[in-house]
């Protein structure tokens, strides 16, 4: 439980952080809340030569509004999960984020873990990527050549892989404000309070005159990246807001939903997600997206607004692709 030695930088501005990252080369790692990075370093599954700690970069913290009613919320990458949960702007404009964040781990982890860290880590079992995808968030990345904005659909590239380049930082996430009468719900399916999602569904539905005008559904842990259930979204659009429409949209559209899986782009994929493998969340495992989709949306139709879930505990984590692979008894060999 002692990490290998590493160099350490603690910048106070984004520019300094970018310089430190550039200086550290390809073995440099950004440290946000450390809730994913530090465990793998302690197990020596990752051994970065340089760690760039963002905890003192205050400009990366906090939530602000941009523009008017059709503007966006801007969430700093270093805003902690617990700040997200209690933030009034998020409660007002994107309660889905707060609701999903409340299911992340336990209070201790939420005090350190960050919104940006969870998204940059891009764990498909993480709760926030699917939410960001469902809300059509945009990711603002800063690099040596300046800033660029990447939509959520392009940010999550593959298993634990994002559009972030090695010398880039995620600085903030812009979440468009939703106009109209929206209901949102995050339904998480896990075995014990500490466990990560087996699957989860983020759903947001806009109602108009008793009909579903628009639905957005994000799926957690049903593929190497978060997914949008586009076919279910389409099936719901225009339907009468009621349990029947929801029941229809779930199972009937499974194939369509799963077809939305992003094409595999690079690297060796976990066997499961290799082309030709069974569709993630497919029919054989009990990890059925249909039930989740129906339940998440059913919940909305019955109880618009966000339902609070009990505090979820925590104790689970997963690795970065290890930087330095070593044989490690008990953790399988590499």
């Amino acid at each position: 439980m002692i990490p290998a030695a590493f160099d350490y930088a603690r910048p106070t501005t984004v520019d300094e952080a970018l310089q430190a990252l550039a200086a550290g080369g390809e073995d440099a790692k950004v440290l946000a809340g450390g809730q994913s990075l530090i465990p793998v370093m302690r197990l020596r599954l990752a051994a970065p030569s340089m760690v760039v700690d963002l905890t003192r970069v205050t400009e990366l913290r906090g939530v602000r509004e941009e523009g008017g009613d059709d503007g966006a919320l801007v969430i700093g990458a270093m805003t902690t999960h617990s700040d997200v949960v209690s933030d009034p702007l998020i409660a007002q404009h994107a309660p889905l984020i707060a609701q999903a964040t409340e299911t992340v781990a336990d209070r201790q982890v939420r005090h350190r873990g960050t919104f940006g860290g969870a998204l940059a880590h891009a764990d498909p079992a993480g709760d926030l990527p699917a939410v960001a995808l469902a809300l059509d968030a945009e990711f603002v990345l800063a690099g040596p050549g300046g800033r660029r904005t990447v939509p959520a659909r392009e940010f999550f590239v593959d298993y634990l892989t994002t559009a972030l380049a090695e010398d880039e930082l995620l600085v903030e996430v812009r979440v468009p404000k939703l106009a109209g009468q929206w209901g949102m719900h995050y339904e998480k399916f896990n075995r014990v309070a500490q466990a990560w999602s087996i699957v989860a569904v983020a759903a947001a539905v806009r109602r108009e005159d008793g009909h579903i005008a628009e639905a957005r559904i994000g799926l957690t842990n049903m593929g190497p990246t978060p997914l949008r259930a586009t076919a279910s979204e389409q099936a719901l659009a225009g339907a009468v807001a009621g349990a029947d429409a929801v029941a229809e949209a779930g199972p009937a559209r499974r194939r369509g939903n799963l077809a939305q899986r992003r094409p595999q782009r690079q690297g060796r994929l976990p066997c499961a997600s290799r082309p030709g493998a069974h569709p993630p969340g497919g029919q054989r495992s009990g990890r059925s997206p249909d039930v989740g989709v129906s339940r998440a949306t059913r919940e909305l139709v019955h109880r618009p607004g966000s339902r609070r879930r009990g505090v979820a505990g925590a104790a689970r984590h997963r690795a970065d692709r290890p930087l330095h692979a070593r044989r490690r008894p008990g953790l399988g060999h590499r």
Partner: protein
Amino acid sequence: MTAVEDRPATAGPAKEVGQARARKEDARLITGRTAWTDNMVLPGMLHLAVVRSPVAHAKLLSVDVEAARSAPNVVAVFTGRDLAEEQGSIPCAWPVTDTMVNPGHPSVAVDEVNHVGEAVAVIVARSKTAAQDAVELVDVDYDPLPVVLDMEQALADGAALTHDHVSTNESFRWIFESGEAGTGGSTDEAFAGAEVVVSRRFVQQRLIPAFMEPRSTVVQPQGDNFTMWSSTQVPHILRIMLAMTTGIPEHKLRVIAPDVGGGFGGKLQVTPEEVLTLLVAKRLGKPVKWTETRSESLMSAHHGRDQVQFIDIAADRDGTVRGLKVHLLADMGAYLRLVTPGVPILGAFMFPAIYKFPAYRFDCQGVFTNKTPTDAYRGAGRPEATFAIERIMDELAVELGMDPLELRRKNWIRAEEFPFTTVAGLEYDSGDYEQATRQALELLGYDELREEQRRRRESGDPVQLGIGFSTFTEMCGLAPSRVLGSLSYGAGGWEHASIRMLPTGKVEVVTGSTPHGQGHETAWSQLVADELGVPFEDVEVLHGDTAISPRGMDTYGSRSLVVGGAAVVNAAQKVVAKARTVAAHLLEASEDDLQFEGGTFSVRGTPGSGVSIQEIALATFAAHNFPDGVEPSIDADATFDPVNFSFPHGTHVCAMEVDTETGMVTIRKYACVDDVGTIVNPLIVEGQIHGGLAQGIAQALYEEAVYDDDGNLTTGTFVDYLVPSAADLPHFDTGNTVHAAPGNPIGAKGVGEAGCIASTPAVVNAALDAVRHLGVSDILMPLTPERVWRALHQGGDGGDRAPAGTNAYGGAQTETTAGVSTPESRLGGDR
């Protein structure tokens, strides 16, 4: 003395026994402001780190430690070859048969490694960090051998061997047949004559004790003496075994178990690391510390359970049971540790449970595999037995179309039949199964839940409800030395206590039962306060240090109160007897005329006279005015060795919701009524029951140690090995009936394992009751959503879990485990 005079003669002081005293040890244990072994810092102390095998079975071609030796701050590196002469074998104190095969268990591998996590070298450095860094530098050349993992395959002809130098994978075969033992009829005849036979194969998955405090050992050499601090349940046993293993004379070795953060059997061991720390300290003449990481603990501390159970039950159509046959395969893992082979034998006598079987056969094979050794885990043998019998009773009920409770009632021992000698030859002491069952049903609200179950079935609710029973008993108070001897156990089962009356009237109680979180200090204080009539606060309980508590057998098998507590009571009574002589002298009265009440001796019929036992302690210290020919001490020792075990029992009832769409199971309600004999402290009893329930439910629903095809433990972190927290457990409705145990002066039966033994089958029976009408008759433990879903939608028992763990920490996404990923485990098994 005025207080005594004023008190009306009738109203004695409130009894301590029975009071819900808050545990006096908890403040320091909970805040951690105490001496855990890893807190020890000694001048010049060195640190150990263990290099462990990443392969399950291989010859060691070479272990190159040169680079590690020259790493900064490394003092020494030892391999198996370096220590081969001194290390001996980890002792196995329970050779269950004369012909038992014991391959020998080096603390650090010399020629061959036999499981992942086995030590291949130890690094000694000036800091833990330096030691850990150097682990990376040891270069081991492994020549792989075939890996044996599955017990049934291991016993097949031509199977690969777990140990290259041992010609079989069978360690022993142990058979009990009531027809031959004379405790019942012939089993074959009973089966031949029965109208119905039901046969099942149950699997007791492998579990990890997962105590909260990782193991830690510190050894300090002083001249030719050694003091070892270790996070152990068994300092006394450890001292004897280390002396016999390493050749360090017993009187030169002192072992101290300071406060210990849990054990559950996992610290009932003589561990390789304890031997290594001692040998290294001896070699270097310096204090040495070893503390494990959680990963090391999960991988290399012994595991529990892991049996395949073939159960046949014979009965008549009216439900009368005729016979029971048990064939067990018990996974020893790669080596025999302290009581590895004895664990299934502890269960041997408990399969017939509370039922009046006329014939019984038990046949157990101990099997070696290339996995971490197994050994005692809470309940040790009895949870396995209880699971099998309570599950098969339900299966029989289904076969006969009977209510499961009716079937049990028809066959269980009735209250008026105690003491009752079972077909396994045990004499059950006391109890009333009917009464406990009635109370449990009331606590549960049985009738309403059955009604709700009916409604849900009729409406085809996606969430079905089931109710499961476990009417269990267990044998505990591991003691009777003669019985243990007849089972070839290497030690007795008595327990020792001594009481020292200090001059100021305070009392020191020395117990040989070394607690590791159970609350002995509180319970013992209550016992002594009553016996001596001194305030609870005036009693201090000392334990865990072989120099302070020279004789003891320590804590396991729910024995402490029943055996150790009884020794304390007996010692206290001896103190009172000695004090009586002194009191008679001081009061100038005959001993026969004295009464002892509320801690004070007084002359019967002479109010106002009297001397308290605490005053007598001072008078004894001074010894100025003492009876002639009497030695000036009222201290006393006692050793208690009961003639029989004690048999707690109870009825546990679980109501379970099963979501047929997702396979998720949720305990709706859990009620249990336990008879643990006399209750010394209801708070402690409740606490032990709760903890036991958590562990038993965890076996049913959450925990499983999974190995992949190469013998890697893929549940190597708490991310994959799911230990439930309070948030995952239901409210427990608990109750008690009290039938005092006749075999000890307290009347207690032991409670440490009851909840863990009883609960597992109640939970599984409940889940099956919810979905049996959908065609499901068994689901392998733990009941993961995936398994339940598969059993519901694809038939069968849910199947094995995918060996791939989650991808947490790279656990699953490795070359090996990704390669074995199955369709069911695409993203890493049941995450």
